[in-house]
């Protein structure tokens, strides 16, 4: 089983890295990180804050674009181009296929995020002329970005199993945006004083993916440390949420017919 999942993941990785759009995005992200040097140089006294903020936000934003735009086509493209026929007629379980596709895109994102992170540290080195151990704290933010991307790919893959790419992109992006404001939504429900609205917003809070907990870029930029418990709780939350998303995608895919 592991061998087949790894083969599908590697094929997905190859497919992603041979897409020109991916290179365009990476180059654009690196340019933006480079541009952060310019912005920071005109921000007297807060150069590093601006650079870290802009740099990590670029990594997050472009990672999100890659996750959504490649993720929504992951399964849909296989069905639309009928490549799925020749794969599922092999001794491949449908769950293995879904898992392989997911891991393949995740691998692509990990490597691209790695490249963008190197670009970020290059920009930081250029600005500060030196790097310190304390600068490694930015890696915690990068790790959280990766956890977010893992959840976004899970969402995109789930929608890709049931919908067209355009709708999948809309659904995934909407959930990402809503998922960043879940704390506010729950607070709003509590403030209304209506038990019905409060139950509804609390339900939404627990049901939808909470991306807000992963936004630590601003704290990192201001030199604040990320508490250890957040590293553990966010890791466990992402693992659980991705497991749920993948299980749902596999269940849907198991029942799907390929006419």
């Amino acid at each position, binding site marked *: 089983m592991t061998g087949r999942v790894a083969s599908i993941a590697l094929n997905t990785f190859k497919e992603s890295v041979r897409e020109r759009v991916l290179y365009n995005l990476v180059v654009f992200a690196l340019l933006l990180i480079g541009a952060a040097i310019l912005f920071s140089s005109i921000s007297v006294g807060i150069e590093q804050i601006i650079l870290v903020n802009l740099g990590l936000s670029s990594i997050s934003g472009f990672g999100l674009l890659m996750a959504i735009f490649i993720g929504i086509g992951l399964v849909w493209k296989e069905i639309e181009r009928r490549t799925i*026929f020749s794969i*599922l007629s*092999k001794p491949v379980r449908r769950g293995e296929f879904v898992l392989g596709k997911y891991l393949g895109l995740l691998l692509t994102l990990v490597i691209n995020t790695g490249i963008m992170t190197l670009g970020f540290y290059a920009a930081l080195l250029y600005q500060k002329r030196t790097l310190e151990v304390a600068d490694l704290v930015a890696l915690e933010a990068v790790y959280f970005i990766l956890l977010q991307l893992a959840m976004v790919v899970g969402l995109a893959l789930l929608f890709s199993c049931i919908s067209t790419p355009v709708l999948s992109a809309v659904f995934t992006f909407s959930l990402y945006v809503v998922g960043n404001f879940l704390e506010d939504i729950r607070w709003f429900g509590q403030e209304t004083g209506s038990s019905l609205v409060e139950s509804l917003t609390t339900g939404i809070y627990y049901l939808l993916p909470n991306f807000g907990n992963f936004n630590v870029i601003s704290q990192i930029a201001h030199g604040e440390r990320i508490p250890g418990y957040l590293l553990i709780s966010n890791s466990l939350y992402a693992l659980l949420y991705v497991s749920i998303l993948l299980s749902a995608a596999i269940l849907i895919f198991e029942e799907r017919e390929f006419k």
Partner: protein
Amino acid sequence: MLAIETVDLTKDYTVGFFRKRPRRALEGLNLRVDAGEIFGLLGPNGAGKSTTLKLLLRLIFPTSGTARVLGRELDDVSMHARVGYLPENPYFYDHLTAREFLNYVGELFGLPSAERRRRVDQLLDRLGLADSSNVALRKFSKGMIQRVGIAQALMNDPELIFLDEPMSGLDPLGRREARDLILELKAAGKTVFFSTHILSDAEVLCDRVAILNRGRLQGCGELREILSLGVSATEVVLENPAPELLNELQSYSRSAIRTGNRVRIEIAEEAEVPSALGMILRRGARVVSVNPVKMSLEDYFMAQIDNGPGKLPAEDKVEALREEERK
């Protein structure tokens, strides 16, 4: 041993957007395909051929009925390790070369690395793709993609090969090669189950055929039985016959068709052939050929499509022969 067995296999598709309703694509299909035979599934477009293949490969699920492939239930995915499948109008990953794609397929079959390399080289060579093995599939012509499709279906050296319209997109040379390959597979003891609407391919290749029309099995039988059943007349071709001779032959022949200096007559009764030939020779006309007029697969096909469902004489005869063998 049976390679494929279907019992009342039925498939409904749901059609319509607002008012969803079922459309029957396959109705109560009962088929038994023996191991080692080349079995042709014939029918016009939309007859249910691809639906049957996809059901057997679990790409779609039956509405009712059951089927077994190589003695296994359809939901037993491990069975796929022993079968090969060429989809209709196949399309493969643009970003891979033929070699990379076949290697990927080998990985999915769990073949060890050395075995994969050997098999990929062998198949690329056998299907005439060796020179293009490192070219991206996006640059391949339709015929070349079809060859890649056949190669991937054979990667695991399967016992049973499903081919959905295998000659589609191939040029005459490619079709000849594909035919040879299918015959080679049979010689190696493989079972080949293929769908086609090109009757000449079926006529050359198949041991048995089944004819589907609008999702229903119209007939199933051994090709040699079907083709030898309907000797409807004897065709005699003459060269430069005298007009008087043709007048006299009217008592034997229903028709006389002239082409250049040759005349073709059809003698309905086999018993009358010797006396008719005697008359022709006595009159000094030259006999070019004497041939029995047999039912072609096309005649048979058209008859089944026109007549609708029903058991065929050929099928009766085959059943009787099998019964006799069993006794």
